[in-house]
């Protein structure tokens, strides 16, 4: 793995669900030995954050456009617990490939 991977986390207000998801992403990245730089934003700010932050991967708990040019994951399984293991492995795989 070469260097730090940038992960953008988006939710409605950028404070609540995004923070819960951000903590989970940091945790799974650490377990997988991937260095990450995690930044949170509001769903409405995703496009502008892409130009300034240039994330490798996006995880969102609200709908965001799918045509952003990088893998976009629905982060809700981190909140509901359903499908969480699958999501974890998908995110880690995307981070390895980024």
């Amino acid at each position, binding site marked *: 793995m070469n260097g730090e991977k940038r992960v953008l986390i988006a939710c*409605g207000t950028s404070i*609540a*669900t995004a*923070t819960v998801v951000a903590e989970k992403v940091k945790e799974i990245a650490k377990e997988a030995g991937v260095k990450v730089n995690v930044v949170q934003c509001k769903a409405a700010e995703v496009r502008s954050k892409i130009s300034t932050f240039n994330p490798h991967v996006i995880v969102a708990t*609200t709908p965001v456009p799918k045509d952003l040019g990088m893998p976009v994951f629905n982060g*809700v399984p981190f909140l509901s*617990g*359903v499908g969480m293991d699958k999501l974890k492995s998908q995110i880690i795989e995307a981070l390895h490939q980024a």
Partner: protein
Amino acid sequence: MPAESAAEAIAQLGARLQAGGFVKPSWVQAAIEREKIFATGLPTAEVGVAIPHTDVEHVLQQAIAVGVLTEPILFGEMGNPENTVPVRLVCALAVAQSQFLLKLLQQLVQMFQTPGVLSQIVSAASPAQIARIFEDHLELTEDITT
């Protein structure tokens, strides 16, 4: 409690919060509007849960109003509003500080993911029993109304 729609469930719980002096009269409409834009239905393993809430400006004092629906009603799924989740447990969150919302959410998520807890809540015999389950799982001090 019986309810026909997500909006009605939010209105019922909001009325309880308002009667208790926890939220302003504007809370219900604001929470219903927010639910349309940012749906809060969570398809958990056992019992569908929704956590309607809205901006701090509509809140006077922090509280959670908990409603167990007699029949499941459909809420939009968080992050995926074209999907719906059959919800039986509605936790209306009156949050006066965004920092509190974060802590509350982390603890609620833990609680919802603990096997058996959601089933226990929806089959509880009394509101007091439900309040006790929440108290056992949330470390925060807040008023709980059912």
